[in-house]
C-alpha cells in the first residue's frame, strides 16, 4: 500500500526547516516532494533600497557556511555594474578565502552526511579536520563565520595577510593534506559505511542534465558543471574539475573529498604566486546602472546574484538564486527506489541549504496571481 511519510518541517534530522513528503510502499520510496520556504527571512526585501556598499554586507548574511561566496558574488555583480576592477592581489586573496571556505563547507557536509548515516565517529573526525580551517579564516579575517573580506575594488585591508599569516596557512596546508588523505582512506575503505552509501541515491547523468543539477551533485553524476571554469579569477590557477560517474551517495561524498584536495592545490598556488601591491583599487562609483548578473561556484554549486544600482546609489531588484532550489528536483528524483532511511541520506548528500534558498514569493493576495519579475525589461520591478 502506498502511504505518505511527512518528514519536517520540524524534525531532528533536518538542520533546517523544510518539509519532505515521501511516499513509500513497504519501506521503498516511490515518490518524493520537498517543500521549502518555511523560514522566509526576507533578505531580498531588506536589500531593496539600501546603499550599495551596505547591500553587500547584508548579502553576506544569507548563509553562514558560504558567506564569502555570497559577499564576493555580490561585490562581483556590483563591480561589473559600476565597471570597477579589483587589484590583482585582492583577486588572489578572494580566491584564497573562497577555497578555504570550500574546504570548511565540504568538511561540514561530510560531517553532516556521516551524522545522517549514524556514524558519530566520522562526524567528529570530519569536524576535527575542519576546525583548523576555521582558525585560519579567523586569523585572516578576524571572524570564524562572516569574514567580510571582499569590498568594492578589492579586499578589506585588515584581511591583507601578513607574512606570519601566510606562513600559518602554508603550515596548515602541509599539515592538513596527510590528515585528509588518511581520513579519505579510512572512510572509503570502511565496509559498513560503504554498504550504506554505495548504490543508494543514484542520480543518473541524463537525469542530472534534465533536472539542471548543479555543483557537486551534478559533477558526481558526471556532468561537467563548474562555474570556476568561466571565472576570470580562477584563470591563473591549475586545478582539476573532479567528475565522477556513479551518481550515488558514495560518489557525492567522495567527490567532495577529492575537491578538497583540489582546493588545497589552489591555495598552495595562491600562496606561492601571491602578487605584491595594493589590495584596494581606486574606486569611482557609477550609479544608475542596468541589471548586473554574477555567477560563482559556491561549495554547493552555481550561485547567482543580480542587482541594479539606481541614481542615488541604492540597490534595486536584488535577487539571489542559491544552488539548492536548482538541485531540489534532483534530490526528489535520486531518492526514489531507496529504503526510507537511505532516502533521507540521499537528500542530505545533495547538501541542501534551504534557509539560504528561502526567497520572496510575490503573490497578490486579492487576485491570487503571482508576480513575475522580468529583469531585462524591468516589468514587475519596483522603480
Amino acid at each position: 500500500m502506498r502511504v505518505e511519510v511527512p518528514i519536517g518541517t520540524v524534525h531532528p534530522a533536518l538542520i533546517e526547516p523544510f518539509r519532505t513528503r515521501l511516499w513509500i510502499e513497504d519501506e521503498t520510496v516511490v515518490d518524493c516532494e520537498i517543500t521549502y520556504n518555511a523560514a522566509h527571512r526576507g533578505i531580498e526585501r531588506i536589500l531593496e533600497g539600501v546603499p550599495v556598499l551596505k547591500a553587500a554586507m547584508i548579502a553576506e548574511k544569507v548563509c553562514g557556511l558560504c558567506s564569502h561566496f555570497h559577499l564576493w558574488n555580490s561585490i562581483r555583480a556590483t563591480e561589473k555594474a559600476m565597471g570597477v576592477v579589483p587589484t590583482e592581489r585582492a583577486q588572489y586573496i578572494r580566491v584564497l578565502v573562497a577555497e578555504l571556505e570550500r574546504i570548511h563547507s565540504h568538511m561540514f557536509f561530510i560531517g553532516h552526511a556521516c551524522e545522517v548515516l549514524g556514524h558519530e565517529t566520522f562526524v567528529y573526525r570530519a569536524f576535527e579536520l575542519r576546525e583548523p580551517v576555521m582558525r585560519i579564516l579567523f586569523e585572516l579575517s578576524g571572524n570564524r563565520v562572516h569574514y567580510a573580506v571582499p569590498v568594492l575594488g578589492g579586499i578589506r585591508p585588515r584581511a591583507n595577510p601578513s607574512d606570519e599569516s601566510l606562513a600559518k596557512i602554508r603550515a596548515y596546508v602541509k599539515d592538513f593534506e596527510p590528515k585528509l588523505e588518511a581520513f579519505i582512506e579510512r572512510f572509503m575503505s570502511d565496509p559498513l559505511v560503504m554498504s550504506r552509501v554505495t548504490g543508494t541515491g543514484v542520480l543518473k547523468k541524463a537525469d542530472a542534465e534534465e533536472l539542471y543539477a548543479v555543483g557537486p551533485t551534478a559533477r558526481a553524476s558526471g556532468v561537467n558543471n563548474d562555474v570556476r571554469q568561466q571565472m576570470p579569477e580562477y584563470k591563473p590557477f591549475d586545478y582539476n574539475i573532479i567528475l565522477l560517474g556513479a551518481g550515488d551517495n558514495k560518489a557525492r561524498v567522495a567527490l567532495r573529498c577529492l575537491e578538497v584536495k583540489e582546493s588545497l592545490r589552489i591555495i598552495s598556488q595562491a600562496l606561492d604566486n601571491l602578487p605584491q601591491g595594493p589590495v584596494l583599487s581606486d574606486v569611482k562609483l557609477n550609479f544608475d546602472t542596468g541589471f548586473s548578473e554574477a555567477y560563482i561556484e559556491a561549495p554547493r554549486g552555481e550561485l547567482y546574484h543580480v542587482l541594479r544600482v539606481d541614481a542615488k546609489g541604492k540597490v534595486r531588484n536584488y535577487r539571489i538564486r542559491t544552488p539548492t532550489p536548482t538541485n531540489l528536483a534532483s534530490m526528489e528524483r535520486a531518492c526514489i527506489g531507496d529504503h526510507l532511511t537511505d532516502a533521507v541520506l540521499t537528500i542530505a548528500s545533495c547538501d541542501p541549504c534551504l534557509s539560504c534558498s528561502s526567497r520572496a514569493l510575490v503573490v497578490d493576495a486579492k487576485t491570487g496571481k503571482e508576480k513575475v519579475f522580468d529583469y531585462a525589461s524591468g516589468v514587475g520591478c519596483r522603480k
Partner: protein
Amino acid sequence: MIQDFVFGSIAAIAIAFAYATILPGIERKIHARIQNRYGPPVTTPGLWNILKFFSKANVKSNSPSPRLYYLFILIGLLEVPFIVLFTNPLWWGVLGFGSVFAIMGLLKVEEVDYLFIGSFSKSMMSLGMPFPDLVKGSKPSESRRYFEEISVTRALKMITLGSFPVYLALFVPFALAGSVAISDVVAMQNPAYRETGVPGSQDVWALISAIRPFAFTLPGIICAFVYFIGYGILSNTRPFDIIKPKIDVMEGPMLEYAAFWRGIYYTFTGLLSFTLSSLFITIFIGIPMSIGQPVFLASHLLLIPVIPMLFAIVRAFSPVFTFKQIYPVSAAASALAFIALALSLVRF
C-alpha cells in the same frame, strides 16, 4: 530458607539496578574517548539523567490510550529483572523458571513490547499539516503513516528475522548440556559450583581455574560471536537500531515517552544492557550471579561490563544498518549458529 530466597532476590535486583546506572555512562565514555572527547561523567547518562527526567513535568502522550501506552514500558521494565532472577541459582528450582524456555520467552516479550508501544503511539511529529496543501504543484495527500507505525513494521521484521540467530546461539550450550535447565549448563562448565557448599571458604584461584567456559570451545566462540551481534539486536543499539534511527523515525515507538516515562525507558535500556550481559556470563562462561557465593558473584560482576564495552566500540564505528545490511548479517549469523549447533551435537 525463605528469608534467604527473598533477600537474595531483592539483592540481585538491587545489584542489577545499581549496575545499570553506570553501564550507559561507561559506553558513552568509550564513545567519547574514541572520538577524542572527554564525554560525560560515568554516572550522568544512567543515573543523573534519569533523575532529571523524573523531576520534569510530563507531556501527555498523543496516544489514543495513553495509560496503556505508558503501561507497556512499565511491563518492559518489570519483566527484564525476571531474566536476572531466573538465571540466579536461587530461582533455578522454582517451577522450572531456570530454563532456556523461560529466558527465551521473556526476551521475546521484551521484543514484542516494542510492537505494542509503537502501535499505541501517534506522535505529533509524524503528522502532516492539518489543512490542504495549497502550494502550487503540491501532490495530493493520501493515507499517512505515523513514524511509530513504520517502527512497528521494522520491529516485526527484527523479531522474525533479525533476532533469530540470537536464540539459536542461546540454545547451543543447552543442546551441548543435553538439558533445558540453566543449572545443568552451569554445571557443565563450572563443576566446582555444585560440589562446593560455600565456595568463599575455599581457595579462590582453585575455584576460578576449575571453570571450563563454553565460550572457550570452538562452537562456543562461534555462539559467543553470534550472541554478541544479538546483544546489539536485542538492545536496539547501533548498528541495529533500525526501529529508532534519528534520521527518519527518530525515537520510533518511544517517541512520546517524556519526563518520568522517558526516565523509565532509560532505566529499562540500562537494565536490559546489564541483563543481556549477565545472561551471557551465566550461560556461556558458567558463572552465575550467585548472591551467597562471593567469588562467583564478584567474578560475574567484574565481567558484566565486557560486552557493553566491546559493543560500545562497535557502535562508535558503525552507521545505522538498514534491512539491506541487517538481512545478510542475520543470515550469516544464523548460518554460524547452525554450524555451532552441529559442532556441539557431534561433541567437537
